[in-house]
C-alpha cells in the first residue's frame, strides 16, 4: 500500500495540489473492469462473431529482400472453404505513409504498402490475403499460394546497412538512413572534453524486442448498410488514427469508417501504430460485403508484427575530478527494420533518445547525432519507454564507470549531479518540472543499506560468491502536449484530449475519453476523477472510449499520456457540467450561481447546506421540464472540455535499486532484491500505479536478461515461438517493493503525472549495474543486453563480452 508523504522530503507531500483529498482520487478503488474479465465475459476481438463472418490470413514473404516475380493464387481458390484471395494489385489500396516535417537528409519519406507490390523487405511481409469460411480453411489456403521471388542480399544489421556498398532497403533512402538528426550540439564541446579530468565511454547494443501483448493483433471488419459505414473492430491503442489511415487507403470519407475497440489484451506500444493487416482485412470486408475476421497467430506476432529497441550507442562523457559531469557526446543508431510506422515514423526511437538523453543530470554540454536505419527486418513501433530504457542504461553506465575510475561511490556521484532546483532548463532546451530525483535516490539507497545488503555483499565476496548492487536514477517525460510533440516535427501532432460528460435523466453520467485503455484501468481511474468532481458514486459514472463515432477525436493511449492529459480533460469537462448544474439550481433559488456548491449528488446553497436540489431533480428540469429553464441555459446536461499542455510536459521520476547474485556454474543472474522508489505525482489509484510499476519492471528485466528477436544471415527470424523467444515467468521475475513519493504536477488538472512506462525504463540499467558490481573482482564490465548466461559465465572467468 501507499506510504504517506515522506517526512523531510522537499516537494513531497505538497498540500496545495488540485484534486488531492478526494473521496475516491488517491484511493485503491476496486476496478470496474474486473468482474467481466474475471468471469470470462470480456469481449476481445477474437470473441466477436458476426453472421456470415469469413476468416482471413496472409500469404507472407519467405525472403527478407526480394523482387516479387509472380504471385499465383490459382490453387488457393481451389482449396475447400476458401472464398477469395487478393493481392496488392487486386485491392489497389493507397500506401501507409508516415511523415516528419524535416528536410532530407534529416528525414527520408518512405511508403509502406498494405500488401507488398513488387518488393518484399522482410520475412513475414504480407503479400496476399486469403479469405475463407473458417480459420482452418484460411490456413489451408496459404499452403496453396505460390509466390516466386528474385532474391537479393538482405541487410540484417544497422552496421551492414550503413556500409558503403550496402544493398538499399528503399531505393530513395541513401545509406539506408531514414532519419539523421543532430538535435543538440553545444558550442565548444570538443574543448570541454579535451580539458576534462576524466572521459569515459560506453559502447553498447541493446537487443531487438517484441512488446508482446499476450493478445495478438486482430480485426473484424464489416460493412454496415444502414450507416453506410465500414466498421472496423480492432484492438488498437489509437482508434482515430486507424480510422484516418483506413479511410485514406480505401479512399473513403472519414465518416464512412468507424473504428471500435473491444477489450484489449495489452498493447505496450505495438498497437499504437496502424498495421497493414487491419487495413487489408477492412478492404476485404468492403470488397466482399461480408464480415471478415483476422487474428494474428503467435508466429506472425513474433516475426512479422512491430518490434523495437535494437539500438547502438557510442557515447562519451567528460567529468571533472570531483565526479561532476561536464558533457555528453552521443551517437545513436536505431535499427528500425523495413518500414516507417504511422503516425510516429522511423524517427520515434532516435528522436526520443536525442531529445531526452541527459535525463535527471545537470549536463552542461551535449552533442548528439541520432539515426534511424532501415534493414530487412520486421518494422518497429513505439514500445513502452521508447529509447528511454536504452539511454538511461547508457547514462547510468557512464556514471558507474566514472565512479569506478574516480574512486567514488556510485550513489555519491549521482547525488553530485542530479537536478535539485526546479524548474530546470537543461542543455537539451527542455524545462523539467519539479521532481524528487535526489530524494528517490537517497531513499532507495537507504533502503538497501538498512536491509544490510552492503554487508551481505562483503560477506558473499569473502565466500567467493558474486553479489552486486546496482541503481538506476531517471525521469520520464509524460503528458506530452501538442507543443512538446510539435518539437519532434511529426506531420501529425498528437497532444490534446477532448472529453464530454453527459448526465442522463436519472442523474448518472457518461464520460468520453480520447485515450484508450488496454489494461491501464481507465474505466476505474477516469470514473474516480469524475465521481469526485461531481460528488457521485463511482457506479454512477460510465466511461466510453475506443469508438470513433462516440468520441469526437482522440490520440489514444501512448507516452504515459492518459491520466495526465486525458484525465485532465475528463476533470475539466466534469467541472463544466457541475457549473451548469449549479446555474440551474441557482435559478430556482433566484441567487447568483457563485453562491452555490456541489455536494454529494446534489447542489446546495453556500452557507446553508440544508437547502439542496438533487441531480435527478435538476436533470428532470434540464430534460423533461425544460420550459422552466431560464432563457440563457440550454436544455440538456452535457459539457465538453479539452486539455492540452503548453509547456514541455511533466516528468515522473524514480530510482530502482537491485541486488543480484551471479551463479558461477551457470552464469545465471538471480535477482535477490528489487526496490523501486517512484514519484508520479498524485496517484489517482495507488494500486493501479503499483501494478503499472511492477508490470513495467518485469518487461524491463525481460529486456535486460531474456528476450531477443534474432535473425540468421539471410534475414530469417529465428525466434518465432515462445520456445526461442524467452518471455520471463514468475520463476524469473522477483517480488518488487515499491515506495511512493509524491511531487504533484502543477498543471495537470489532477496533479497526476504519467505512470505507464517508468518501470520498464529503470529496470535494464539497474540490473546491468548490479551485474557489473557483482563482476567487479573480475575486472570485466558488460554493456550489452540481453545479458545471456553465456556472457555472464564468460565474464566470471575474466573473459570480455564477445565482439559484436
Amino acid at each position: 500500500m501507499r506510504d504517506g508523504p515522506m517526512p523531510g522530503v522537499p516537494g513531497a507531500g505538497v498540500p496545495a495540489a488540485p484534486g488531492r483529498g478526494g473521496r475516491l482520487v488517491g484511493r485503491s478503488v476496486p476496478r470496474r473492469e474486473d468482474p467481466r474479465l474475471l468471469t470470462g465475459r470480456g469481449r476481445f476481438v477474437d470473441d466477436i462473431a458476426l453472421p456470415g463472418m469469413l476468416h482471413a490470413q496472409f500469404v507472407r514473404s519467405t525472403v527478407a529482400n526480394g523482387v516479387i516475380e509472380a504471385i499465383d493464387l490459382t490453387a488457393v481458390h481451389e482449396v475447400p472453404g476458401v472464398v477469395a484471395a487478393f493481392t496488392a494489385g487486386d485491392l489497389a489500396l493507397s500506401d501507409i505513409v508516415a511523415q516528419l516535417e524535416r528536410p532530407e537528409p534529416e528525414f527520408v519519406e518512405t511508403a509502406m504498402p498494405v500488401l507488398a507490390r513488387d518488393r518484399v523487405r522482410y520475412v513475414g511481409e504480407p503479400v496476399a490475403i486469403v479469405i475463407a469460411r473458417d480459420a482452418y480453411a484460411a490456413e489451408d489456403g496459404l499452403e496453396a499460394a505460390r509466390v516466386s521471388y528474385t532474391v537479393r542480399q538482405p541487410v540484417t544489421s544497422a552496421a551492414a546497412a550503413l556500409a558503403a556498398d550496402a544493398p538499399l532497403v528503399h531505393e530513395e533512402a541513401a545509406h539506408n538512413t531514414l532519419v539523421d538528426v543532430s538535435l543538440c550540439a553545444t558550442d565548444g564541446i570538443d574543448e570541454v572534453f579535451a580539458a576534462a579530468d576524466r572521459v569515459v565511454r560506453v559502447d553498447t547494443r541493446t537487443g531487438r524486442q517484441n512488446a508482446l501483448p499476450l493478445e495478438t493483433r486482430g480485426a473484424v471488419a464489416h460493412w454496415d448498410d444502414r450507416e453506410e459505414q465500414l466498421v472496423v473492430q480492432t484492438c488498437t491503442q489509437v482508434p482515430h488514427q486507424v480510422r484516418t489511415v483506413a479511410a485514406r487507403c480505401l479512399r473513403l470519407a472519414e465518416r464512412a469508417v468507424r473504428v471500435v475497440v473491444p477489450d484489449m489484451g495489452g498493447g505496450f506500444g505495438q498497437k499504437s501504430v496502424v498495421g497493414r493487416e487491419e487495413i487489408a482485412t477492412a478492404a476485404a470486408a468492403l470488397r466482399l460485403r461480408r464480415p471478415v475476421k483476422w487474428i494474428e497467430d503467435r508466429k506472425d506476432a513474433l516475426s512479422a508484427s512491430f518490434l523495437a529497441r535494437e539500438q547502438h550507442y557510442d557515447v562519451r562523457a567528460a567529468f571533472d575530478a570531483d565526479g561532476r559531469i561536464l558533457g555528453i557526446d552521443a551517437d545513436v543508431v536505431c535499427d528500425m527494420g523495413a518500414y516507417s510506422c504511422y503516425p510516429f515514423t522511423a524517427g520515434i526511437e532516435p528522436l526520443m533518445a536525442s531529445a531526452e538523453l541527459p535525463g535527471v543530470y545537470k549536463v552542461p554540454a551535449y552533442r548528439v547525432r541520432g539515426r534511424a536505419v532501415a534493414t530487412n527486418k520486421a518494422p518497429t513501433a513505439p514500445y513502452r519507454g521508447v529509447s528511454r530504457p536504452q539511454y538511461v542504461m547508457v547514462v547510468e553506465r557512464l556514471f558507474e564507470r566514472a565512479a569506478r575510475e574516480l574512486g567514488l561511490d556510485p550513489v555519491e556521484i549521482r547525488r553530485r549531479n542530479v537536478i535539485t532546483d526546479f524548474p530546470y532548463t537543461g542543455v537539451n532546451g527542455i524545462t523539467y518540472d519539479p521532481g524528487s530525483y535526489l530524494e528517490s535516490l537517497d531513499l532507495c539507497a537507504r533502503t538497501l543499506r538498512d536491509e544490510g545488503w552492503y554487508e551481505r555483499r562483503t560477506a558473499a565476496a569473502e565466500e567467493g560468491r558474486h553479489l552486486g548492487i546496482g541503481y538506476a536514477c531517471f525521469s520520464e517525460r509524460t503528458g506530452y502536449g501538442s507543443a512538446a510533440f510539435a518539437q519532434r516535427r511529426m506531420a501529425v501532432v498528437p497532444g490534446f484530449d477532448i472529453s464530454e460528460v453527459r448526465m442522463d435523466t436519472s442523474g448518472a453520467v457518461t464520460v468520453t475519453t480520447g485515450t484508450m485503455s488496454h489494461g491501464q484501468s481507465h474505466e476505474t481511474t477516469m470514473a474516480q476523477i469524475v465521481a469526485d468532481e461531481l460528488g457521485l458514486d463511482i457506479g454512477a459514472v460510465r466511461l466510453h472510449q475506443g469508438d470513433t463515432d462516440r468520441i469526437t477525436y482522440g490520440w489514444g493511449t501512448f507516452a504515459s499520456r492518459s491520466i495526465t492529459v486525458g484525465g485532465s480533460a475528463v476533470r475539466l469537462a466534469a467541472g463544466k457540467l457541475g457549473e451548469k448544474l449549479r446555474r440551474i439550481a441557482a435559478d430556482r433559488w433566484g441567487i447568483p450561481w457563485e453562491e452555490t456548491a456541489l455536494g454529494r449528488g446534489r447542489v446546495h446553497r453556500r452557507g446553508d447546506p440544508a437547502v439542496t436540489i438533487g441531480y435527478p431533480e435538476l436533470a428532470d428540469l434540464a430534460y423533461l421540464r425544460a420550459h422552466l429553464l431560464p432563457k440563457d441555459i440550454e436544455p440538456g446536461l452535457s459539457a465538453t472540455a479539452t486539455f492540452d499542455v503548453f509547456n514541455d510536459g511533466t516528468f515522473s521520476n524514480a530510482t530502482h535499486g537491485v541486488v543480484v547474485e551471479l551463479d558461477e556454474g551457470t552464469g545465471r543472474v538471480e535477482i535477490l532484491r528489487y526496490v523501486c522508489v517512484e514519484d508520479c505525482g498524485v496517484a489517482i489509484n495507488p494500486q493501479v500505479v503499483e501494478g503499472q510499476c511492477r508490470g513495467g519492471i518485469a518487461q524491463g528485466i525481460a529486456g535486460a536478461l531474456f528476450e531477443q528477436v534474432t535473425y540468421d544471415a539471410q534475414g530469417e527470424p529465428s525466434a518465432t515461438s515462445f520456445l526461442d523467444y524467452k518471455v520471463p515467468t514468475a520463476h524469473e521475475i522477483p517480488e518488487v517493493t515499491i515506495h511512493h513519493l509524491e511531487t504533484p504536477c502543477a498543471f495537470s488538472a489532477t496533479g497526476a503525472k504519467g505512470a505507464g512506462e517508468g518501470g520498464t525504463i529503470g529496470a535494464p540499467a539497474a540490473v546491468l549495474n548490479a551485474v557489473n558490481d557483482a563482476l567487479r573482482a573480475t575486472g570485466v564490465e558488460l554493456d550489452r543486453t540481453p545479458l545471456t548466461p553465456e556472457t555472464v559465465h564468460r565474464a566470471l572467468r575474466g573473459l570480455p563480452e564477445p565482439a559484436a
Partner: protein
Amino acid sequence: MTDTDTDAGTDSDTGADSLPVDSSPVIGRELQLITLEVNGEEYEVITEPRRTLVDILRHELRLTGTHVGCEHGVCGACTVLLDGRPVRACLMFAAQAEGAAIRTVESLSDGADGSELSDLQRAFRSHHGLQCGFCTPGFLMLAEGFLAERPQATKAEIREVVAANLCRCTGYQSIVEAIDSCAAARREGEEK
C-alpha cells in the same frame, strides 16, 4: 540470384460455396460427431477432427472466456480443467476430450446470473491480479486446479505453479499474492 517458391500443398477436394453461416462446416471435409461435457452440460458438436479443444469451446460453444495466446502450449491462456486437472486446451483436439468433465472460467462464478465472484476471483480483484485480463482465465483455472489438489500449498509452491503461464501486465507478484491469500482464507475456513 535464385528463385524460391513457397510450399505448394493443394487439397484436391473442391469446395462448394454454401450458406454464409459462421463456422458451419466446410462441405467436402471429413466430419465427426463428438460429445463434450462442459461446465456440467452436455454438448454435441459436428466438427472436423483437426479442430482443437480451445477452438471448439470458443467458436462452437461460444464459451469465449478461455483465450488463445500462443497455440503451442507455452503461455497457458487457454488453460481449462479436464477432470479437475489443468490442461492446455490449444494442445489437444476436441475429440480427445470426449468422456472427460471439462471446466472453463465460465464455471467459476455463482449466482442466478453467474455474476457472483468466487473467492479465487475476488482475491484476484482485491490484489489487482489482472490488468488487461487476457491471461486471467488461464491463471484462474490453473489456480483452481492446483489449490484443489494441494490446499496446503506454500507461497513458494504457488509461485512455481504460476510460472507455468505467461502474464505480460502484472509482473506476477499480485497473481501469486491473490492465489496465496485465497488458499490461506480457505484453510482458515476449514479450521473453523
